[in-house]
């Protein structure tokens, strides 16, 4: 009976439950909490809140749900879903050496000789998420997501009104302003809130309001911040209808918001086919580091507009996009372990991300006001706010705010121009930051 109880106790002691109520070793109290099981408990609670927001409130559920579940999974002690693969060299025993001489051993394990001693290579398999994470680490998934986005996007409103490109550029102001803010925090001299240039650039890209771009740049510049940045980027994208309208109203007059814009001209098929080719040529020649994102975005769009590869286009829009979304979401979530996520920097990332989003919106609206002025009142400045990407949510917000002033005003298609230009703009901005800081 005693041995049975001992066995049960051993199983309990070896389970993840016991580990959940432990503190880490070394450092101050907070560091011990973050590196111990209690840190995991806090992360599980955060993951559950994010799951609630994704399922109940439908905040970007396609990505927030897998991100939250990845976060939950990686914080369950002993699960080791993110354990990295590694190799060690183990000295051969006499029996193994004898087998090696007979040619038996080496068939199963590679054997090496160093300084007269023979070793076999012990190969430790990594966790599932670690293998899937390689697609994020090597920058494979975000461009594939862009392929699907390209196949789903109609660039017609942008081609019909090319001036929209400028609004897409102006809304990138948030990225660079936030980079300034994040760098300036270093002047405080407090190590916990000091960001390196690579970290500041990764945080700033949240202002692009483009999840795949943010993940792509962060995976290359500051992979340890991936979880926090992805959560911030997708949360703010879901909160666009709450964040943007007050800024849009504060920066515009009633008269400006009521402007009814001229009907967009119809765009020919030839223009739609040539668009992705020209954009690829110009942007990639100008900024080669943006090639993976812009190239894939435009390839997807060419699939769509050419009309000759409908099957591929549908696969890029649906099956491929969905598969990559699962891999990307769950592995990005799995990078958010307690030790890296429960840091003062995470809170700062959330705050700086909000600033980036707000300044980006303001930049677009202010440039819209400039265009309103120079065109003699033909451009409604509200469409500038859609330049922050977040397709198509930001364009819908512009439509909604415009319609509140003038119920007969339909700004949606006008706002789609800056909206899709913002995708190109944020990819270019990411390329600039990568060129400067890699």
């Amino acid at each position: 009976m005693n041995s049975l109880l001992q066995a049960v106790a051993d199983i309990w002691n070896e389970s993840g439950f016991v580990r959940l109520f432990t503190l880490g070793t070394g450092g101050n109290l907070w560091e011990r909490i973050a590196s111990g099981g209690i840190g995991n408990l806090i992360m599980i609670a955060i993951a559950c809140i994010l799951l609630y927001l994704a399922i109940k409130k439908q905040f970007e559920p396609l990505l927030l749900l897998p991100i939250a579940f990845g976060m939950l999974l990686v914080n369950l002690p002993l699960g080791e879903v993110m354990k990295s693969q590694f190799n060690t060299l183990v000295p051969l025993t006499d029996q193994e050496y004898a087998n090696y001489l007979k040619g038996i051993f080496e068939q199963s394990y590679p054997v090496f000789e160093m300084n007269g001693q023979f070793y076999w290579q012990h190969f430790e398999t990594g966790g599932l998420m670690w293998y899937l994470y390689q697609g994020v680490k090597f920058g494979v998934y975000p461009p594939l997501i862009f392929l699907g986005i390209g196949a789903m996007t109609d660039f017609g409103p942008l081609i019909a009104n090319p001036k929209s490109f400028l609004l897409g550029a102006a809304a990138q102001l948030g990225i660079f302003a936030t980079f300034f803010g994040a760098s300036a925090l270093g002047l405080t001299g407090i190590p916990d809130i000091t960001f390196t240039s690579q970290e500041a650039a990764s945080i700033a890209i949240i202002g692009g309001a483009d999840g795949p771009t943010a993940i792509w740049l962060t995976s290359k510049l500051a992979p340890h911040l991936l979880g926090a940045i992805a959560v911030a980027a997708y949360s703010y994208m879901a909160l666009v209808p709450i964040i943007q309208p007050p800024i849009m109203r504060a920066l515009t007059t009633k008269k400006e918001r009521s402007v009814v814009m001229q009907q967009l001209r119809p765009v020919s098929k030839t223009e739609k086919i040539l668009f992705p080719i020209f954009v690829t040529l110009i942007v990639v020649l100008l900024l080669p580091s943006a090639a993976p994102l812009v190239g894939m975005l435009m390839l997807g769009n060419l699939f769509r507009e050419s009309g000759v590869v409908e099957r591929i286009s549908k696969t890029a829009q649906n099956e491929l996009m969905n598969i990559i979304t699962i891999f990307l979401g769950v592995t990005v979530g799995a990078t958010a372990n307690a030790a890296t996520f429960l840091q003062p920097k995470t809170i700062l990332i959330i705050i700086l991300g909000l600033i980036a989003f707000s300044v980006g919106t303001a930049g677009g609206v202010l440039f819209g006001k400039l265009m309103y002025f120079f065109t003699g009142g033909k451009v409604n400045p509200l469409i500038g706010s859609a330049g922050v990407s977040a397709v198509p949510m930001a364009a819908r917000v512009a439509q909604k705010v415009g319609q509140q002033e003038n119920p007969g005003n339909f700004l949606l298609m006008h706002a789609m121009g800056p909206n899709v230009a913002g995708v190109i703009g944020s990819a270019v901005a990411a390329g600039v930051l990568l060129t400067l800081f890699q």
Partner: protein
Amino acid sequence: MGEFKFVSTLASANASDVILDALFVIVIGLTVVFASLILLTAIFWLFGKFMQRGQKKSVVHNEQADDESIAPKPAIIPQMPVAETGVSDEVVAVISAAVAAMSNDGKRYTVRRVRRVANRPVWAAAGITESTRPF
């Protein structure tokens, strides 16, 4: 950018170096983003002008062709119904208004014929609605 080094990465960097570097990033970043997108604006603006001119020429050409084809058969035109049976005058008015709104060039148009496209199966109609929806 191969040999370029930010001043703030050097051990001797001070607060003003950090600020200067950050300002440098803002200026270079916004310049490159704007330069790329201004270039694209210019190209697609010119492209639009070129395409519109091409379309206008083909419209003029079509109008001439129509005139030529109509001229020898003046008796047929008045007999042709504007809309097929079952299409109300209100629907014709709405279609005409939509055409006028889309063309938006101040010209006068004459609707010669309104014809219902072959009756589609309900699933095909649903598919078209789905794929022509903005989102």
